[in-house]
């Protein structure tokens, strides 16, 4: 099993709310990002070093969606995290 290919950067702080959503704060740029429950689940999975397939499985279980939908969501959010320089590629 390979990992997701991405690791959260150290200067990114996350804070989670009751509903499972939350906020990411980039201490370098002072930008913050609101995350919905799906994005937060994926961020937590990245923190825990989960593999891509594992993240997809978690999404399918938690949100009762099919694999195609979960794969698309995971790919899209990983791409956004990377574009916004919130994660680095794993070595």
């Amino acid at each position, binding site marked *: 099993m390979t990992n997701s290919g991405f690791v959260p950067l150290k200067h990114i*702080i996350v804070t989670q709310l009751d509903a499972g959503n939350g906020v990411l704060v980039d201490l370098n740029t*002072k930008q913050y990002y609101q995350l919905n429950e799906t994005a937060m689940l994926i961020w937590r999975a990245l923190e825990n070093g989960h593999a891509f397939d594992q993240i997809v499985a978690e999404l399918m279980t938690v949100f009762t969606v099919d694999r195609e939908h979960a794969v698309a969501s995971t790919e899209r959010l990983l791409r956004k995290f990377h574009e916004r320089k919130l994660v680095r590629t794993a070595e």
Partner: protein
Amino acid sequence: MSVGGSTARDRGRGDLSTSKLVEYYSVADRILCFKGVDESVLNLARKFLGGYYFTPINLAEAGPPPAHLIELHKNTPPALPATDSGFEIEDGHCFTSNDQIVLEVSGSTIVIGPPELNRTDVWLSESTPGRHQLALNNVILYAVQAALRRAGLYQFHAGCVLPGNDSKAVLLVGDSGSGKSTLTATLLLGGWNFVTDDNLLLADSSAGIEAWALRRYFTFDEATLQNSNLTSFKQSIGGRVPGKAEKFRFYARQAFPEKFVDTCLPGAILFPTVTHEPKTRVEPLEQGDALARLIRQCPWATCDAAVAPLHLQVLSKLVTQTRSYTLLAGRDVFDDPGSIPGLIAQQIEIP
């Protein structure tokens, strides 16, 4: 650049205790220590702190050692970091490095040491504009705010009022012009208890996030004083606020002594905005939106890296222990202010 030396805890019980140029103040259950190179600089601090709920204490009465030391210097400040890192702040620049922050404010230099030292050093400007009272106050404010953050106390601009003696508080959060002051005045006259109109400290405790009174006076513009009939409390209206000539000091604790509360647990947050609708109404706000708004109100929550995680955690806990609402203030705030306290109490839930 780094500032060496002992920590606040080392010095709180050591050589500082016998010096006449050291003073201790209690604020929100913490102790801050101020050391001045001479009487004149300590006087600056005293004058500034007199406007806030900082209580001078004798060292003998102080149980725990001070949480933070602020030392005021007059000699040549250390060189500013030769780096482009950092960002602009009001009246100056903030230089950041791995373990400390250096602020250049109106010609004065503030070095906020690494978290484990719990000390902040201030070199006061010798220039004429830098020695202006407003500039010096601003410098001390930056230093005190940084010290408070390292003591687990986060300054927050919000009104804080309570509908009843045993109730949790309602925070009114918004920029200048959002109607915060007018609403605070309206609720005060409607019989609500109060902590502050605009300046408090947030602290994490076993009971939850607490709000503590910080500034001793309210600030209202003339229109708010007149529209709210607060002009009848002539003895409680002070002079104009330096640097904000349109604002007057209002000593609410003098006018309503039985209504003052020094600390409380917030149960609701209102984000007011002025509308031209006839009636005031409230709309629930999602926790994520509320947290984003709080972060916008607290720039140091994302700028002071050493304490940012704890600061953000406090804001996050505040959002989860409260219900948040947008308050759309209508014309009735001016036309029928007596109806507003009841209307708000009816429309919001305070857990």
